Every structure is written in C-alpha cells, then in structure tokens.
C-alpha cells in the first residue's frame, strides 16, 4: 500500500511536468478525491492511490484537455467522459479533448474493468471539471476586480457586466496547477445539458473512414516487423533450436533470450518465412483432454449437503461451463520503440499502468523509463488485462534497437491469451409448497465467486467458490464468473419452480422484495414480452431470467425455436430490461445492453474451447463460432432510468440473463433441462 502511494506521488510530479511540456503552458487542475475513493469498495488488487483522480488542462490555444487513465475499448467511455467534463465545464462537448491511457500524461489508474468507469471516473471528472470552472471564475473575478458571483461561465466564455473573455484568455499567464478538494457542488441532473443525452460516439468519423489508428495500424520510421516462436503446446520445453536458415534470409534478424525467440524483418511476409524456417525440437508436457475437464475441476472434495427442512421440496443439480475466448476482433498487438533510455510501447490493453509494470519488470527498467500509450482499441471484453504483446515487442525493440511492430495472429490470440474460466456449479435448492425458498446452496469450482450470492431472499444460504487447478490459462471476462453462477442459479430457480408447480416468473417474484430493482426489471420485461398471455406452441419455448452484478439489474425473456432434426436452437425473440441507475447516454447504454445480450448468446449456445494435451484444437474462427448476423433475434431493450440513483457501469451486467433465459425456454419447449454451457440439443 505504501509502495503504491510512493509510486503515485512520483508519478504526479513527473507527469505534471511532462504534461505541461506536452500541452504547453496553461492551467492544470488536479483533483484530490479521498472521499470518493472512500465510498468505493475496490475489490481487486491493490487500492487506488489516494491523492489523484482526473486532471484537466486549460490550454492557451482554446483547447480544454481531460486526462484519464481509463481506456476506450468500444464501451464508449471516451464519449461519456467527454460528456461529464463538458457538462461541468459549461462547454460544448466538441471543444473538450480527452487523453486516455497514456502513462506519461495521465494520472495513475488501476485499469478499465469491473464497470468502474461510470461510477468512479465520471464523478471524478465532473468534480475536476466543476473545480476548473470555479477556478476560472475566481481568476476572472480577480482580473476584473468584480465579485465572482456577478460572473457566469457559459460555452467556454466567462461573462459579467461589460467583461467577457474565453477560458483560454483567462487561463493565459497562469502556469499554475491547483490541487483541489472533491467537495464541490455538481450540476443536478435535472439541469443537465450534455449528460443524459445521446451524444454520438466521439471519434466515430475517423472509424468509418479508416483513419483511426488502432495499435495494429501504427507505423514508425524504420520500423521492423516481428514474429515470436511459440511452443506447440502449453508447457512444452525447447530442447534445441537451429536458427541458421532463418538468419541467412536477407534482412532477417533473430532475437534469442533463453526460450524466447523472435524473428524480425522489414516486411511481415519475410518475418513469417523466417519463423517457418526455424528448426526447433520440443519436449511436450502431456495435459488433459477437454472431455475430462469437469471431473478435473470438480475434484474429489466431498461437500456437506444442507439439511432440507420438513415440508420443503428440494432439488440438486450440477451445472457446467466450458472455457470460452474473448475473441476481440483486434488481436493483441504492440509497437515498441527504444531510444536508449526510454521504452515507448503502443498497445491495446485495459490496464496501461499494469502493462507498464510488466514491461519494466521484463526489461529490468524503472517504471519511469517505460511509457505505454493505448490507442482506442479494437475491443477487450475483459480479455486485454495483460500485456503479452507489449512485453514481447519491447524485448525485441530493445534487443535490436529499432522500432518493432508485433501483431498476434488469430491462432496466437486464441492460444496464448487467456480464457474465461470453465467451471462446475453444484446447486441445492429447497422451497415450501407456497414457493418460499428455504434452502439455497451453491458450490462453485474454478470459475470464481463473482455473482455467487443469491439476490433472492433466503435465510439459509450457502455460497462458496472452491479453487481448482485450471488446465488452461484463465482470466477476466465480461462479468467473469457471474455469468455462469447466474446461469446455474436462474436455471435452478426454474427447476425448483416447476417442482413446486409454480409459474417461474411468479416463483421469482415471490422470493424478491416487491419494491426491489430486480423485481422491477422482471416485471417490465414480462409486460413487454407479453409473458402472461403466452400460449404453448409445438417446437417453441419461452424462458425468463434475471440477474444483478456491479450495480446493474437485468432481466431477459426469450422465445426459442427448436429443430429436433437439425438440433438447431434458435433464439427468435429476446426482450431485455436493464437498470443501472441514472442514465448518462441512452443510445450508448442501449448499444451496450444489446451487445452484451448477443455476446451472451455465444457462450450460451456455441462457444467452447476444445483442447487436448495442452493444444487448443479449435484456435480458428472457422472452428470457434461467435454470434453472427444470422443469429440475431428480434431484440427489444427497455432502459429503466433511475434519476435519483447514481449511475453504475453497463458493459457487463446485461450479459447475465440471456443464457439462463434460453435454458429455461428450451425446457419450456421440450422438457429437456440443459445444464452445460454451451447448451446443445
């Protein structure tokens, strides 16, 4: 903890100087946010440093720049943060520039994950922006020798009586920075002009013209292209390597450091040929076949089963979920440049400062010798927390002292990134004939405890996650373990509802407080879906499910059509209601909800990593199916706005309800209870 604080203090001073160099003189506002952080339960890793937040720079050239350690990976944080700043600065959003994820310029940030940007960074930026506006008003009042209360800040201009000057003019000559307290009044949402509106995606024009440079598009003068030698399977050890053929190719250089071998050439095709020309002998490490995955994860541990009270009906079930891949369309990539004392790495990651540490450690450099710059990235979904490509490119660039680009192939991305954990969920549920839950027991193996606590009212609840030795590298994912835990819970609730002879929606509502947000989204979805008026139809089924995580509440109802001949499960219709508090940007929120629901269909119906003896058997998009146009159901999304509740993030929780809704709909259609993700007829 102390170490973090020291790092943060060092960062601030260095960064402050670098920033003023980079942006020119001007007015820099730094936000102290102890109380904001005090309210936040930071659940993973080390705590955030205590004395930093968002920074805002008012330049002398008319630009206002917001600096944040968050990154843009398609969740439209750049847009919502622009809105947050513009709102409190009293400026048009087009006049606000946001610099994200450049470790030399922005305040330290743990990373963009856990749906934290909206609940933590939006308020921080709003406070910094409000403080900036107030500071400019104070400066103007002093300059014109008038009371501050006689002045107004609107559209980037301060006016009062006969006086008028732009923010830049006011800031001119004040090369000061200011550390402020976070206790500053924010604009009430009833008066919002920019927040709460559907501002279009910032930077979208450069995307549709192809001008936006993702990491893979960055080119530096004299840059070479690299390929890294990969083992044929996990844990394989190199016995011998002969690089002579590759080395003899014109323009090819070899970088070798123990088992790390890379080839470098002026053109990608030459690097690919050089890689193919390496002669390597490996000793492989046998691993399990994926058919044995769940036995391996479950292990032999015997669990104490809960006592079932007299008069309750109970049911035990085991659910499973396969490993799945994030498949970000932009694979891992990095462009690294070493100038003799500093390593600059452009890479797409959700943790720029974490990757800076990884690079510094791998190269034996001090953190301040490493700069990580994250361009707006071709998605992440929790899959880009790490900096593999950045570390590799940096090692190579330093070894050959030339700028290097490394772009992972799709096979590399499928094989050497990390997966959403596979898991086993053992469930015991019991309820009275009235439908009141009496026992709930949930033992998870390997995929973790996010979302394992039941949101239903149960006095006798047991929910525990057990660790297993995972045969594959695993890590974060959209909602991480909560998706599978919720799948098991919501399907098991359905099982119990049928056991008690109670309609599944009614069964859920009986066990939720009537005024709860989860009950509300369930009711909203049921109403929109026409749940009460459904009539059985051959080959069709209807299912409903709900879930909550990270401050978001979701319910989804689906209609499925089953083809018993082709074994096709088709989601015909999906209606989702989502509540994450006050809505900051309705259109982008809807986009996230729809996207999460569609992504959730992949894990529900077809995504699974197949492996044997440490090899991924389906490391290709031709063998790993993700949702496509043809999978698109008729989708409806209802956004529940809660003006009095602070906004929570929305990139994750909407994924929770689709898989169990599909499972419950399949049961409704043909009486088959599918307990394995992905579900197959």
């Amino acid at each position, binding site marked *: 903890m102390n170490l973090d604080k020291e790092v943060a203090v060092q960062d601030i001073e260095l960064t402050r100087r670098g920033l003023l160099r980079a942006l020119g003189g001007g007015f820099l506002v730094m936000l102290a946010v102890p109380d904001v952080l005090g309210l936040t339960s930071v659940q993973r890793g080390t705590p955030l440093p205590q004395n930093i937040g968002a920074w805002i720079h008012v330049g002398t050239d008319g630009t206002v720049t917001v600096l944040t350690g968050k990154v843009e990976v*398609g969740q439209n944080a750049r847009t919502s943060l622009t809105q947050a700043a513009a709102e409190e600065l009293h400026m048009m959003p087009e006049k606000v520039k946001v610099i994200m994820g450049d470790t030399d310029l922005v305040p330290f940030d743990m990373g963009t994950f856990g749906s934290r940007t909206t609940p933590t960074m939006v308020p921080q930026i709003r406070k910094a922006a409000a403080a900036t506006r107030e500071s400019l008003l104070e400066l103007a009042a002093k300059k014109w020798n008038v009371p501050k209360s006689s002045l107004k800040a609107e559209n980037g201009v301060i006016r009062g009586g006969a006086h008028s000057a732009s923010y830049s003019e006011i800031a001119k000559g004040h090369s000061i920075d200011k550390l402020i307290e976070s206790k500053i009044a924010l604009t009430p949402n009833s008066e919002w002009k920019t927040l709460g509106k559907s501002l279009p995606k910032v930077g979208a024009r450069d995307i549709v*013209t192809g001008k936006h440079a993702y990491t893979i598009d960055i080119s530096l003068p004299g840059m070479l292209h690299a390929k890294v030698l990969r083992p044929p399977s996990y844990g394989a050890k190199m016995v011998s390597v002969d690089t002579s053929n590759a080395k003899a190719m014109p323009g090819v250089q070899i970088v070798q450091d123990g088992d790390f071998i890379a080839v470098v050439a002026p053109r990608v*095709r030459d690097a690919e040929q050089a890689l193919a020309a390496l002669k390597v002998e490996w000793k492989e490490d046998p691993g399990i076949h994926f058919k044995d995955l769940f036995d391996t994860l479950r292990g032999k541990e015997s669990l104490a089963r809960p006592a079932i009270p007299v008069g309750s009906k109970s049911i035990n079930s085991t659910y499973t979920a396969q490993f799945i891949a994030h498949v970000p*369309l932009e694979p891992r990539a990095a462009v690294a440049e070493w100038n003799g004392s500093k390593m600059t790495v452009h890479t797409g990651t959700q943790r720029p400062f974490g990757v800076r540490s990884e690079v510094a450690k791998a190269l034996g450099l001090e953190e301040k010798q490493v700069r990580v710059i994250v361009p707006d990235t*071709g*998605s992440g979904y929790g899959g880009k927390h790490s900096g593999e490509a950045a570390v590799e490119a940096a090692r190579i660039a330093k070894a050959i002292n030339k700028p290097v680009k490394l772009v992972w192939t799709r096979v590399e991305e499928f094989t050497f990134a990390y997966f959403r954990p596979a898991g086993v969920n053992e469930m015991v549920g019991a309820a009275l004939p009235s439908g009141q839950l009496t026992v709930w027991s949930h033992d998870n193996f390997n995929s973790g405890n996010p979302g394992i606590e039941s949101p239903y009212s149960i006095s006798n609840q047991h929910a525990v996650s057990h660790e297993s030795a995972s045969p594959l590298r695993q890590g974060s994912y959209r909602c991480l373990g909560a998706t599978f835990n919720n799948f098991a819970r919501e399907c098991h609730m359905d099982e119990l509802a049928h056991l008690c002879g109670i309609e599944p929606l009614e069964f859920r509502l009986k066990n939720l407080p009537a005024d709860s947000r989860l009950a509300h989204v369930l009711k909203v979805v049921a109403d929109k879906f026409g749940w009460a008026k459904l009539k059985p139809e051959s080959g069709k089924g209807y299912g409903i499910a709900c879930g909550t995580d990270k401050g978001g509440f979701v319910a989804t109802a689906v209609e499925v059509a089953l083809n018993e001949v082709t074994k096709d499960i088709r989601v015909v219709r999906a209606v989702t209601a989502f509540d994450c508090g006050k809505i900051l940007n309705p259109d982008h929120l809807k986009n996230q909800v729809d996207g999460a629901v569609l992504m959730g269909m992949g894990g529900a119906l077809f995504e699974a990593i197949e492996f044997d003896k440490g090899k991924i058997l389906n490391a290709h998009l031709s063998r790993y199916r993700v949702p496509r*146009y043809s999978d*698109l159901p008729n989708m409806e999304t209802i956004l529940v706005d809660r003006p009095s509740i602070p906004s929570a993030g929305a990139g994750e929780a909407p994924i929770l309800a689709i898989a169990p809704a599909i499972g419950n709909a399949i049961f409704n259609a043909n009486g088959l209870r599918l307990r394995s993700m992905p579900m197959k007829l």
Partner: protein
Amino acid sequence: MSVTLEVNGVKHTVDASPEASLLEILRNDLGMTGTKFGCGESMCGACTVLQDGYSIHSCITTLADVGTDPITTIEGLEKDGKLHPLQKALLDEGAMQCGYCSTGMIMAAISLLKRHPEPTDEQIIQGMSGNICRCGTYPRLIAAIKKAAVEMRSKK
C-alpha cells in the same frame, strides 16, 4: 519481383511475389491501414475490400488473384470531404462500439447494395454473413444498411 495493382484509381507497383496477400500489401506496402486484419482465414470480414466493385476478403486474396482488377478500399470512399452514404449511415445509426469491424462492414455492404439495391432483412443477413461484429452491433448495422440503401436509391 515487382507487381502492379490498381487501388482507388491509382496504380501502384510493389516489390512482392504474386502470391503475397493483398491485405499485407495494402496495409504494409501501401500504408492503407483502414482495411483491418482480423483472422487471416476469411472468417471475420475485417479485411473486406472491393475487387471490381464486389466484396472480397483481402487476407486470402493474392496479388495474382487480383490481376488488373481495380481494388477499392475504405480510403477510396470519401470524396471531397463527403462521406459515402454507408459511412454516414453507420454514424447516424451509431452502428459501432469498438469500430474495428466497421470498415469491413461498410465495404461488404456496398457490395451487397450493388446486388440488392432494395435489400430484405434476409438478403442483408445473407449478404453480410462473412462479417463479424464481436461487439454485437448487428441490429444497428442492419438499420444503417437499410438507411443507406434508401439514400443511394434516391440519388440514382
């Protein structure tokens, strides 16, 4: 070995074998990075460009396959600062999240609308089946394609 190809109306001569992939030539030799690499096996459509007006996946297309056919990439769409109706429609419909698939989607949709100027939903789904949006913005992409179709027909 030098090979000549025509991209966006301009002839380029590159030092490459006829077996070189069009995607690599576009991105690395010609610096046209609007066309993306996604999978390298014609399964995602991020690399879609037009060959003689119809969509192809440039990652599995060789220079020999292209021959003298004109190639159009995303860089060739904007005219005098004016966006192509499909580019504009994606903006209007907010049909993107990370945007990595957008340029390939636009090129595939141009080809689709050439074959079906008034496409049904089924024709869109069929015609766009080679393109993946991992963020799941398909509903918006379909809306954008329909919108652009209307605009393109009205201009004829």
